[in-house]
């Protein structure tokens, strides 16, 4: 298996010509790029590891003639081990992206990778926000704009996309088939893994060519606010809040609360780059925005630590907490917009 099995629809994303850097007194965006590159390198490693698992699983399934009953009967231990490793790899790799989502989604030249990897819907759910690629499987099937790669693979591995799973199986051998105990469609998993490698590689190259501008940085902070609002909404209806009543096919493995924390962490890095520039025109505004951003991160971090410790919030509590955090985030975005206006930095639309 290799890239040939995953003929992703042609997508000539960004020849990545560097844009002229516009300087802004006080701003230092080099750490933002360093932070981004550190994570794109981690993502490439994750994609490679994930493909190794997917390829091995595909080889086993192929050997069984893609008869999953036979596969499970004959290769039970190996399949269970592989899928456990695949899930662990996925859980480890997901936050790598979330930590830089603020930068990627908020930077016009990189934003397409946010759609591909993490934010794009399927054509069926929302044609306007659908991913820009089709996934061609090794067996010739084509999944038209199937949704972003993290959601897609989560759905395959944990069975929330039934059309991409082959059968249920008691993977942990405890006598009960619980959430996430499925055998994914090997063709789909292999193709998605190839796509991960392809697009994470491209993101890494585009990130290396990127020359961060003040507009990118300000836009990244402002643009993430509505995205976070969506995330709180997704958290409220995920398994982390609704438990078994959750019906969504994504965000059931890594809590969206955790993602929000990661995103805020990335935004703090960006703000550290532009805060001094804001301080040059209005030190009060700079101080207040930094403080609010730090406090918001602490607020979310506290909640996610509680959640990781096993606390489950009721839907009403999740609603109240999410709304409160969102209001604070909106205020931050608003103030950063005001600062951009004073500094005459353009916020991309």
């Amino acid at each position, binding site marked *: 298996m290799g890239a040939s099995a995953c003929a992703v629809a042609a997508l000539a994303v960004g020849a990545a010509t560097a844009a*002229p850097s516009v300087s802004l007194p006080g701003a230092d965006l080099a750490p933002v790029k360093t932070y981004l590159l550190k994570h794109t390198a981690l993502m490439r490693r994750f994609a490679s590891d994930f493909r190794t698992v997917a390829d091995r699983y595909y080889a086993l399934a192929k050997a069984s003639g893609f008869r999953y009953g036979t596969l499970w009967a004959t290769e039970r231990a190996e399949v269970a081990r592989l899928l456990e490793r695949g899930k662990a790899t996925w859980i480890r790799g997901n936050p790598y992206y979330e930590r830089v989502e603020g930068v990627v989604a908020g930077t016009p030249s990189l934003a397409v990778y946010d759609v591909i990897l993490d934010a794009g819907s399927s054509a*069926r759910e929302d044609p306007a926000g659908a991913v820009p690629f089709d996934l061609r499987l090794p067996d010739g099937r084509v999944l038209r704009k199937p949704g972003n790669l993290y959601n897609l693979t989560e759905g395959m591995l944990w069975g929330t996309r039934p059309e991409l799973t082959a059968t249920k199986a008691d993977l942990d051998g405890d006598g009960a088939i619980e959430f996430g105990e499925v055998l994914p469609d090997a063709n789909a998993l292999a193709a998605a893994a190839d796509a991960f490698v392809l697009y994470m590689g491209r993101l890494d190259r585009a990130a290396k060519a990127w020359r961060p501008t003040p507009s990118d940085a300000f836009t990244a902070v402002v643009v993430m*606010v509505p*995205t976070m609002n969506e995330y709180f909404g997704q958290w409220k209806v995920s398994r982390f809040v609704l438990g078994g009543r959750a019906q969504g096919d994504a965000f059931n493995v890594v809590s969206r609360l955790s993602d929000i924390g990661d995103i805020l962490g990335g935004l703090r890095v960006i703000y550290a780059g532009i805060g001094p520039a804001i301080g040059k025109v209005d030190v009060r505004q700079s101080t207040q925005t930094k403080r609010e951003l730090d406090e918001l991160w602490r607020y979310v971090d506290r909640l996610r630590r509680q959640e990781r410790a096993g606390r489950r919030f009721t839907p*009403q509590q999740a609603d*109240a907490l999410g709304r409160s955090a969102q209001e604070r985030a*909106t205020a931050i975005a608003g103030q950063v917009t005001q600062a951009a206006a004073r500094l005459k930095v353009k916020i991309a639309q």
Partner: protein
Amino acid sequence: MRPLVVLGAGLAASLWLAAAASAAPEPWRAAGDARLSLSDAEAAQVLGDAQAVRSELAQARRAVAAVLAARPRDLRAARSALADAEVVATARGERELAVARASVWTTILRAAFDEALRATRRGDVPAARGWLLVREFRPPTRFSRPAADATRALEALDTGALAARAAAAAVRTDLLDTYDARLQAAVTGVREAERVGFAATRAEMGTLALGYWHIVAPAYRTQRGGAATRRADAALVRLARAAEDGAAVAGPLARVERALDGFRAAPLSPDELARRAGQLERFLKLVPIEYGRGMRDGRVTLAFEIQEAITFRDGAAAAFRDLQPTLLQRGPTATRRLGRALDRLGVALADAGRGDAVASPGLVRSTSDAALTEAAALFPEAWKEAAKTADFDVIAATLDRLQAAAASGEWARAESARLEAYGIFELGPEQRLRGLAPSLFRRVEGYFWYGEGDLPGLVQLVKRKASAAELAATRAALDDALAEAEVRIGAGPGSSLSVVANSAVIVFREGLEAVLILAALAASMVGPERRFRRPLLAGAGVALVASAVTWVVAQTVLGSLAGFGERLEAIVSLVAIGVLLVILNWFYHRVYWTQNLQGLHRRKKTILAGAGLTLAAAQLAGLLLLGFTSVYREGFETVIFLQALTLEAGALTVLQGVALGFAATLAVGAAVFVLERRLPHKKMLVATGILITWVLVVLVGQTVQTMQKVGWAPVSPIEGLQLPYWSGIWLGLYPTWQGLGAQAAALALVVGSYVGAEALRGRRRARILAAPPGARDTGTARP
């Protein structure tokens, strides 16, 4: 002694107060503290940490005291709300805490609103900026960013560009608009919380609605009067109470919604209303066009076209929401019908987008037309006339699509969006801009096509699949130029003198092109062929009359006529090229190969006779057509440009400019014809040959460019080739393979014709010289 003690005590108290005041945080910071403490108190309560709740509430109390120190009444209300929350801090008083949060925070917001306005009015920019740190924003979406109007107004006030009163008005509008949106969102929040059964959220939303209402109530009173305000106030109070007490909220909600129906705290200015009206109209017109392109035989064949139809429908719906309060006052029934038509359209398009159900293009068109009819009946005349800048919003939306398509690697879609955006510019603003600010027009066109200054044009970027950053750079420059154009067009023509001057320049420039072409053609008709000048000039005369008729027609149907502008120009130019090629062929044969003219005529005669025409009639028709097309293509263009100026300044003013420009053109024409007579005949022929060739090459280049503009010809820019703007105007040179290739082919044809004629003439001369003397009886060779 006692007075001294009193004095000392007073002094000490004053010093203590002053020290306390200097130690107290600034209001904006204290407001931030209050917000954070209240938010943290809520989190602590959810996490069951009663001690933390009490601690956070105590901090909130101190912060509130600092913020509202100068507003004792508000301070009392806020303290009371906090006291209620403190009472239940140990119990599970989520609802009480939620209400306290909402009450205290909106009280702070109201104080900040008042103080920011006061500070702005007295010109105290630092204080106003401080209070503006304590504000909320319209919730941003993927497509909208928080407003910065108040901040910009303070910047302008600080630099002296804006008076305090005007700055205060801008600050007030920005804040009122924000809290109006927040009020609406809170009312919706009560309904939503009721639906899902979240008691604390419902209580919080009810109190928030009341708090925001208190901020916008003065604006409501101004618009609707005291009695209506009291009723609305009572409805909001009842809603807040019912939401907090857990009573039924359906009744109070309905009363609140009735009271707020059509209310807009910061009404749009007349210009903004007209602009939204223009947006609604333009976007709605585009919906069925895009939808129709995406459908074939009852199936969605191009999904992205359906998405574009959805984008335009959403744009129209957004404009409608802004217009709704005003429209409701003009005609509530028709306004609701318009709203329903937009909703139906939205449902039909969404269904098609998802593939659930596919409405016929006819149904989408009729729904769209119905909405447009309602809008036309509702919109006042002033909106229809003043909506001239709405095209800029459509262009911006279309350029957004270009960038989105490029970011997705869908370059064909990106090019389609580019052409569409240019088409909208060309059909609307370009006409006015050419008259009002020709240099600005050239800049905009440069960014759309082959670049301007150091920046490449969009067509070049799309063709070479440039990076998002490069596209963004050109887009930013284009946006700036378009913004300037919008201001320029919005400002109108300025003085009558400038309109006269601009009209004259347009007529002279276009007239000069026609005169040069005619002069070149006429100059070739010498000797016996001088008689051919008559039909040529007659054709030109007919074209002048036709241009005048076009002017009259354009007065009434400018929009639809402009829609055909470039297409008609392309067709007329193609005819002109065809006729010119025939004439050129004739010219070279006539000049360099006279002996064979009879043979040529004989062949032509045979061919034309077969078609039922005589040679003389064909020549006459051809020359008439050539004269006509040479002048009418310029005349039509002139009429379109001048119509835009006519709309701005009236026909009389424009006609003065036309007269001036025409007189100048005639003068140049006369000079050219006089010069032609004075030149030696042979030199004249050489000059004429070069001139006609130049005319052909220019015509070919410009026609290819026109065809590319209307999408009839592909565009392949030549990388790295930058040509100045004048080379396009005067030489028809544009940096595309198609344009330069066609020009090279035309030139090759002409040169080939000359070389071929020369070769044939040489062979014939050699044959004649080689023949016996008696046999040399043919030919009347003339140099």
